[in-house]
Structures are given as C-alpha cells and as structure tokens.
C-alpha cells in the first residue's frame, strides 16, 4: 500500500517535471516586523506559470492552491461539560505540531479544482490538512467532522488564524497570478512556509515553495522574551518595580 503510494507520488512528480510548467513566485515582504501598535497587515504573493516546449498546447487554464503555514506548536483542546451543576473541563485532545497559522487560498472552489482523492493527498482544504492528534497513546488525524477537530479549526478561524478562501487567488493574465495573505494582529512569530500547488484539468502538475518570517520588535517583545528566557531576572525586576512604585507613592502622598 505504502509502496504503491510512493510510486504513484513519484510518477506524479515525474509527470510534473516532464510537463515542465515552472512556477515562479515571490512575496511582497520576506520579513514582516510587528511593532507594538501593529493591527494586522496583508502580504501579497505574486507569481507566474512559465510554460516551455514540453507543455501541451491545449493546456490553457490553470488552477492554484496556496497554503500558508505558520510555526508549528502543540495545542490542547478542552471540552466543558456540566457536572454537579457547574461547567467544568472534562475531556481533552492534544494536537501535536500543528500550524499556529494556516491559510488556504485558491482561485475557485477546492472541489471544482480537483478530485476528493487528490485533494486529500495534497492536503487541499482545511478538512484535508493533516492535524495530528494524540488519541490514547496513538498518533493520528481523525475524520474532519470529529468534535474536537472541528472545534479546533472553528476556534482558530474565529481568531483569524486559520482561514480558507477559494476566491483569494486572482489570475491577472492566464499565467500571471496574485493573492493576498492577511496576517491578523495576534499573528504568531516565526517562519511561515508558503506552498503553491498548480493544477490543470483536475490533475496536480507541480508545486513550488517560498517562505517569509514574522518578527516582533519593540519593548513588548523584549519583555515577552525576557519573561520566557530569564524568568528569575524578570521576576526580580518586576518585584523591584513593585517596591519602587510603592515607595514613590508613599513619598508623593506623604501627609506629615
């Protein structure tokens, strides 16, 4: 089974290189700096599909799926239930090394671009992206309609950190395309991988990758980093700050 899959994948890749469309892409900014008053931003991804002699002449319409993945992290989803009259956390699932930011963009609905099998294999659509869970010692992704998985994607989507937009990619000419990558205010810092997958007539014919980086700068970031890396120094400084404030107040408001 596994071997058959690998062979199929290999043939597919081989096919892609034989077809020889080349994807050339670039993001508008490879290093996004988040300042304290940052309230979200949009990056732009440009690209073009380069044909060469090997390209079948009848192939004119292309479809694109752009996947943006932020730094990976372990997350826990908990469910509250009513017990003894109050709402308490009862059950939980651990999601292992899932992207903290995930965006899927296409030029038309995912189901119109390719078949469900290829969509699953190429992880096209939020329902098909691999989100590994730890289920009683086992590691696996579950069906998309699993309560914890759907709650997880729903909550991430509410915060603007997971998104799916099947009309975000626009073709300026039949081979030139662009898409916006919205980054919300609470965007996680780190390296973002961008994967651009090319489809024609429902078949996957090639992909390319690029990346950008999000760095936070300024006093707030300095505070956050210090708190995480030098807990002791941070605690001492905070304690000293508390004493200073208290002492100054007792001087300013002295009633003698």
């Amino acid at each position: 089974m596994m071997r058959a899959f690998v062979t199929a994948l290999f043939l597919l890749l081989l096919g892609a290189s034989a077809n020889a469309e080349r994807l050339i892409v670039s993001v508008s900014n490879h290093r996004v700096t988040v300042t304290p008053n940052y309230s979200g931003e949009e990056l732009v991804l440009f690209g073009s599909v380069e044909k060469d002699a090997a390209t079948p002449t009848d192939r004119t319409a292309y479809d694109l799926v752009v996947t943006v993945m932020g730094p990976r992290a372990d997350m826990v989803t908990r469910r509250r239930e009513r017990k003894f009259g109050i709402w308490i956390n009862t059950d939980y699932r651990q999601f292992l090394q899932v992207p903290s930011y995930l965006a899927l963009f296409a030029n038309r609905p995912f189901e119109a671009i390719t078949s469900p099998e290829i969509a699953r294999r190429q992880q096209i659509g939020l329902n098909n992206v691999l989100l590994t869970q730890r289920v009683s010692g086992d590691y696996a992704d579950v069906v998309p309609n699993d309560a914890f998985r759907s709650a997880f994607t729903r909550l991430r989507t509410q915060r603007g950190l997971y998104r799916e937009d099947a009309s975000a990619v626009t073709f300026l000419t039949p081979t030139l395309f662009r898409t916006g990558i919205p980054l919300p205010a609470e965007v996680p810092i780190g390296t973002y991988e961008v994967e651009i997958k090319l489809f024609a007539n429902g078949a996957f014919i090639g992909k390319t990758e690029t990346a950008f980086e999000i760095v936070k700068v300024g006093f707030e970031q300095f505070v956050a980093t210090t708190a995480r890396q030098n807990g002791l120094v941070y605690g001492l400084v905070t304690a000293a700050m508390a004493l200073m404030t208290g002492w100054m107040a007792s001087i300013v408001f002295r009633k003698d």
Partner: protein
Amino acid sequence: MQLYLPIADLPVNVFLVLAMGAAVGFVSGMFGIGGGFLMTPLLIFIGITPAVAVASVASHIAASSFSGALTYWRRRAIDPALASVLLCGGVTGTALGVWTFTQLRALGQLDLMIALSYVVLLSTVGSLMFSEGLRALMRTRRGAVPPRRTHNWIHGLPLKMRFKRSKIYLSVIPVVVIGIVIGFIGAIMGIGGGFILVPIMIYLLRVPTSTVVGTSMVLTLVTMLFATMLHAVTNHLVDAVLALILMVGGVTGAQFGARAGQKIRGEQLRLLLGLLILSVGVRFAVELVIRPEDLFTIRELGVSG
C-alpha cells in the same frame, strides 16, 4: 490609547486599566485592604486569562502593600516579631500555592479552581462580614455595649511567645498556620488576603487594632513579592506592563480612598465591604452555573521552531 500586553498577549486600553486600578485602589484605601480580590476578577472579566491575572495582580498588591507598610512603619504600627512568625508560615504557604497552581494548570482545571475558590471564600467571608456589620450597627442603634472579649481555645496552645509591640502572649502554632493558609490561597487566587487576615487576627488571635493592619500588610508584601518571583520563574505568567499600569492607578486611588474611608463609620464600612465581597463571590458563582458561550477552549503548549 491601545497598548499590547506582552504576556497576556492582548491589546488593552491603557486608560481602562488605569481607571480599574484607580477604582480598586480607592476601595482598597477606603477599607484598608489590598484589593486583590477585586482586581483579579476585574482583569478576568476584561478578557485576561485567570492565570495571567492572578500572577500579575500579585506584583500589584506588593506595590500597594509596600506603600502602606512604609506608612505604618513610620507610625510604629507594625509588630516585627509577630510579622516574622507569620512570614515563616506565609512563605511556605506561597510556595505550596504556586506549586499547586502549576499542577492545576497542567491538568486544565486552574480556571475552575480559581472560580470555585472565589465563590467559596468570598461568599463565606462576605456573609460573615455583612452579618457582623449588621449586628454591630443594630447594637449601636440600641446603644448596647459590645460583648467583652474573652480568651478562647487558641490561647491554651503550647509554644507560647511574647509579642512585645502588640502586648500579647500567644502560641506560635496558630500564627504559623494562619500564615500558611493566607500564603497558599493568595498564590492561587491572586489576593493579598488582608481582608481575611485582619478579621482572623483580631477575633482569633486578639491582636490589638493598633498593630493589626500594619503587621498584616508586611505579610501581604512579602508573600506577594515571593509569589511574583515564583510565578515568574515557574509559569512565566507575570505581565510586568499590566502590573505597572495597575500599580500606578492603584496607589493613586488608594490615597483618595483612605481619605474617603475616614468619613464613614466603622460598622457601615464593614457592612459595605461585606456586601462588596459577597457580590464578587456571587458573580463567580453565576459564571460557573450558566452555560458557557463556547464549550471548547484551546491552549498552546509552546511554539517550537
């Protein structure tokens, strides 16, 4: 003016937090308490996670109790011997509290425990204070004399010690135990514990009113400083920016509160404080009973790479 809180990971309005600090400071100055039991819930209600709220309020209480303690020290209203014995228990209790806090957080039950502790503690203390205030008020109406204080079982315990400035002769066992309890609940709930400690010291230990508030402030100061340190080292949850805004608002509000408090009679003050504590407890109880908007929550366990 929006400001991004680095640890709470949340943009807040500076003036809102400053006003909250001042309002709580006013109340705390009026009643002579730290105000943590009001500050922590308020922060939770504006969307800061209970864990960050508890850890950050600790440093805020340290600031306000330090300015209070300095004033009492100048007036020689602190009993150093009593304070040191209390601290032996307080520091132990705080360490235990922060350890429990970390364990509960890993289990995902921290928010529930914080809410439950608030409900139980605040409704009990609130009702006791309220009914006591009511009785005292009726007594003064009728013109009766308050019942004479008598010694109780606590004064029969061994390991007695003389506390000179408070002019009491008392076993160290209840003092250390009270220190442990206050330190423990303080670290878990983000409160200084002054509003519980002062009545306990007056009614159970018979500490004279001249030294009770100053001495309890020393305990609050040291346990809260210690809690700040431990929360910073173990859980990385202390938001210094948030704490600073709260401190500035708090110490300012406290000065005006103290002046306002002098104009109100003692029994009425206790009645009001009891009502206030009780309502915070009820607010938490309601929160627990009604169905939450979303049954699911996500927590990140740390970003890698």
